[in-house]
């Protein structure tokens, strides 16, 4: 996924649903080949007041897509005179990612809260399919943590448990994936709004002694 001259996020991204909202998280590394072009990237992107997306793949592609969806959704929301649904945002991503699948390298997780279905996580992997999941992981770093998330996830976790689960998972991925690193950016989205948090290098959850 990385190439000389081509800026990519190889990345670890994650989102978890809980009763009342979602928790989203990502690492902060952007690479051009092996050089870290940005070590404090924000991959958690605002789409609407209660809807964010986590971006993995090509930085340029995902930024362009997010810009388009942001515009489309805010227009739609004004027409509707209502906050938009997470499912709507996710489907807008899907339409773009499926239509231009040959030209894009984008793996996106859309997560947020709406009045109709509460906290929701939708994943739009490369290829442009869409599926709702109770939690989702993505990016190159995600391969290293499938075992961890499968064994640690429990349905019905609280917001705090979800934050811990997400931070642990991303930390483990960052440890093993050369394309993920930096700080952990977290956000919790509920009816009340968005609460952002950053976990810096020194405070990262630690698992190995050496």
């Amino acid at each position, binding site marked *: 996924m990385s190439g000389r001259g081509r800026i990519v996020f190889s990345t670890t991204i994650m989102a978890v649903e809980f009763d009342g909202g979602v928790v989203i998280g990502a690492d902060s590394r952007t690479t051009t080949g092996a050089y870290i072009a940005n070590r404090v990237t924000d991959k958690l992107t605002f789409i609407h007041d209660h809807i964010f997306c986590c971006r993995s793949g090509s930085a340029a592609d995902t930024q362009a897509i997010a810009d388009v969806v942001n515009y489309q959704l805010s227009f739609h929301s004004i027409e509707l005179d209502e906050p938009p649904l997470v499912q709507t945002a996710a489907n807008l991503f899907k339409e773009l990612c*499926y239509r231009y*699948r040959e030209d894009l390298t984008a793996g996106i997780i859309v997560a947020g809260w709406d009045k109709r279905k509460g906290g929701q996580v939708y994943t739009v*992997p*490369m*290829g*442009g*399919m*869409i*599926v709702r*999941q109770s939690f989702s992981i993505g990016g190159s770093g995600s*391969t290293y943590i*499938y075992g961890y998330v499968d064994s640690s996830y429990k349905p019905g976790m609280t917001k705090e448990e979800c934050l811990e689960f997400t931070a642990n998972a991303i930390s483990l991925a960052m440890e093993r994936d050369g394309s993920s690193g930096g700080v952990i950016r977290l956000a919790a989205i509920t009816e009340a709004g968005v609460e952002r948090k950053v976990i810096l290098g020194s405070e990262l959850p630690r698992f190995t002694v050496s």
Partner: protein
Amino acid sequence: MVTGTSVLGVKFNGGVMIAADMLGSYGSLARFRSISRLMKVNDCTILGASGDYADYQYLKQVIEQMVIDEELLGDGHHYSPKAMHSWLTRVMYNRRTRMNPLWNTVVLGGFYNGESFLGYVDKLGVAYESPSIATGFGAYLAQPLMREVMETKPDLSRDEARQLIERCLKVLYYRDARSYNKFEIATVTEGGVEIEGPFSSETNWDIAHMVSGFE
């Protein structure tokens, strides 16, 4: 891209049964373990797809809209399984000719005017009907099993069809590295469409005790 493995289909006395596991693979990774690859088209037709899941979702969207549009015409007509199969064949062949295929192999089942229908269409636009159909790995492992049963007994009961399908799904789980032990079964009869699941096969690993070392 995310892909689905085998789809099985078998005709029985009074209807047709289609089965597929609930896995979306991302290369060798068993990424999505609860996705449905079977859909109800209308009261007399069901469809199962293997191959690219995003292309299946696109097809599903188009077909569902077609069925709605037809309902809105209000002329009392519904797409027959054969008509749907014919349409799908044209779509798949056309996309193939434009060098932009829908990367799927589709199994279409139906019951219309007292007759069972079971058809196949793939990404090249190859299409045919048969009393039993299996895509992907199923073509190598399940089809011989299904044909063996149906050659001696062409008219299966619903239960016999179910047993045959479940036996085939078990073998596929044993031998297909991209399969998953969680599946759905769709049945279409005079009474309409039923999609049941998720189910899992009972597996037997006793032979493991009989093997030790490699010689």
